[in-house]
């Protein structure tokens, strides 16, 4: 079960400078696009349960979900990113994100993997992005499954709330 190199890498983290620091990102897919959410921002991943729609809310708010007795607001980030609506499939997951206003369920098409990324490998966001996207994108990086955009999920959600 254990791997030497992995152990070593994990062991090195506290001693190394910030350049060598490893950060973990949960890779989620919207369609075919891969986005990363820092693991420390997430609480858990769950399969989509019974989602109750709330009339009169914003279009990206899918509704409310009862997770182990806790009521979560589920958001369809694809609508926020202008990527169309998310449909529920076998692979669909809800990533519960910790925010300043409590946990929020992010609806995504698939959870790909957890990626260990060196801080230096994270590149600043592309200058060609629109201002809206620029706010919610922290940068991007290369992974074994392709290019991954790193989302600042709190800013994204906050921006929406501000606009609304």
């Amino acid at each position: 079960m254990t791997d030497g190199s992995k152990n070593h890498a994990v062991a090195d983290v506290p001693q190394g400078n910030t350049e060598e620091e490893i950060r973990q990102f949960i890779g989620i897919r919207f369609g075919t696009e891969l986005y990363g959410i820092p693991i420390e921002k997430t609480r858990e991943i769950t399969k989509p349960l019974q989602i109750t729609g709330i009339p009169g809310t914003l279009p990206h708010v899918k509704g409310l979900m009862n997770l182990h007795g806790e009521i979560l607001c589920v958001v369809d980030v694809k609508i926020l990113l202008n990527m169309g609506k998310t449909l529920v499939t076998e692979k669909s997951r809800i990533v519960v994100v910790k925010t300043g206003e409590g946990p929020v369920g992010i609806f995504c098409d698939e959870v790909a993997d957890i990626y260990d990324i060196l801080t230096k490998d994270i590149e600043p966001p592309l200058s060609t992005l629109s201002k809206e996207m620029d706010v919610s994108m922290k940068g991007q990086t290369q992974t074994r499954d392709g290019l991954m955009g790193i989302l600042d999920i709190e800013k994204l959600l906050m921006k929406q709330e501000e606009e609304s």
Partner: protein
Amino acid sequence: MRDVYESLIIPLSIIVILNVALFILIKARVLQRLSLSKNLIAVLLAVTLIPVICIVVVNERKISSILFTEICEKLVSVGRTRALFIEATLEEVKLDTESIAKNWIVMEVLRQISLEKTSKTDPNFSTTVKNAQGHLNRIATTKGYDDIMLISAEGKIELTSTEHSAEVGFDVSSDDYFKQGKEKTYFTDLFYNKFANNNLMYVVTPCIDAQGRFVGCVIVEVGMRRLYNVLADREGLEETGETYIVNREKLMVSESRFLKDTVLRVKVDTLGVNEGLSGKSGVAIYPDYRNVPVFGSWHPVKYTNWVLLAELDEAEAFAPVGINRLYQIVLVAGAIVMVVIVAIFSARATVRPVHGLIAVSEYIGKGDFSHDITIQSYDEIGKLIKVFQYMVENLRLLIKQTQESISRISSVSVEMLSSSEEQASGSAELAASVGEITATIEELSSSAKQVAVNAESVAKIAGDSELTGNQGKESISESIHIMEEIKETTKDSMKKVASFSEKSQKIGDVLSMIREIASETHLLALNASIEASSAGEYGKRFSVVAAEVRRLAERTKTYAEEIKNVVSEIQASTGAAVLSIEQSVKNVDKGVGVIRGAGQAIDSNLELIEKTSGASRQIVMATQQQRSATEQVAATMKEIAEVVKQSSIGLKQFTVAIADLNKLADEFKEMVGKYKT
């Protein structure tokens, strides 16, 4: 009126009469005996010349008459003028004589001599006489008299104007003129005076004194010279005109223009003289003293017994007529020539087409139609020529067509001949072929017999086939049975395959479950990683384990996927096996159907064989009928042969007839061929 009659009506009636005569000639077809050209010339000449000649004649007559009148007038005028002149001259002489007689000296002289008997030698008287003589001499000289003589009452010549005249003392009392002159003034005729040695005339007048006594006479001798001067004047008398005077004795008193020394020598006894001597004046044509016909006018001269004649030769007078006549003759001759020329040309122009027509007609008479008339003419003859030409062309065409038709008939008859000959030979061939057909039909009859035999044998063979067919039917029902067994076995194996398919379906279900579990495991592993991360440094080892679990779950998922694929393939091939088995079941069913069909086919085959057997029996019957029909045909063919024979004879006769026709056509062709086109 007479003039109109002469110069208009008569010529006109003559023209009419002559033209009527011409018309009658034409009507009587007298002229038609001449040729057309001569006829034309004659008619043209007649028509032209009749009026021309009439006009010429009338004209000439008219001219002659006018000329005659003119000449008459001229002669009368000349004669009258001259006569008057002579009379005037004589009158003057008379007046002179009478004035002399009244002169007082003359009277005194004569009174002294006659009454007083005074001698001329008396000295008192001689002066008077001398004066008287001077007076007389003066008068005679001035007036141009030859002499003036005074005669006493006794009739003696007492005094003359010329001195010492021989005549003085000459007694003339016995002379006629003295006797006449005692009474009144008297003119003597012209006579020869021996004293004067000349022809003279005396004018005697009595001298009467105041008391009325006759004292003597005065005689004036008049020479003819002054008269001759008048008469010799030839003005208005042309070449041959003359005026002369003839006395009572019909002797010429004046000189002739033609003869010499005529005075009182030449006697003129002509119509004019005689008429004139009877005291008439007039004009006429008569032969003159030369016995030449002349125009003459005669005028008696007062105081004398003379006749003055003015004459002009008729020849000269009518010379203009003669010249005119000549001109007219030339004109008429010219007209005749022109008319003849024109008539000849016209006749030729008229006749030439006719000659052409005649020439072509002669050719046509000989049967030669190849000549055309090419003369252009627009009159009736031209029309005739056109019509004739049209007729000739039509005849030519007709002959040509006839010739062509005949040659065509000829060739056709030749063809007919040959074809009828061919037909004759053909009919012979036909007869031969009829014979052959008859033979063939007999053969057909015998072969029909053969057919009947063969048909019987067919019927027999059909019976054999029926038997064999029944055997085939049995073996087919056996094979159907075997096929049913095959079908059963196949259905069984199909069921087995279907159960295998069901089992593999279950494997698939299990695999789905495994996948589900793997997925759950993966999710759990993820959450474990999250938990580990939130545990911080202590959770790192757990994080590694969680990652391993996650990978395991993923691999499981992959394997399950692979197995699922294999099972799917198995399921697919099982489905194919099921399908193929079903197909083989269907094929077996089809095979059974086919074998059953074969059984039915054998059944129907049997029926066919039965039908064949029946049909062959019918064939036998039909063949028999055919045989009898064939015999009838043979009989008919014999009849045909007979007919062919007869037609062959007919054809021979036909051939002979066509040969005759051909000969006839040749003759006709030769006959028509004589015509040239």
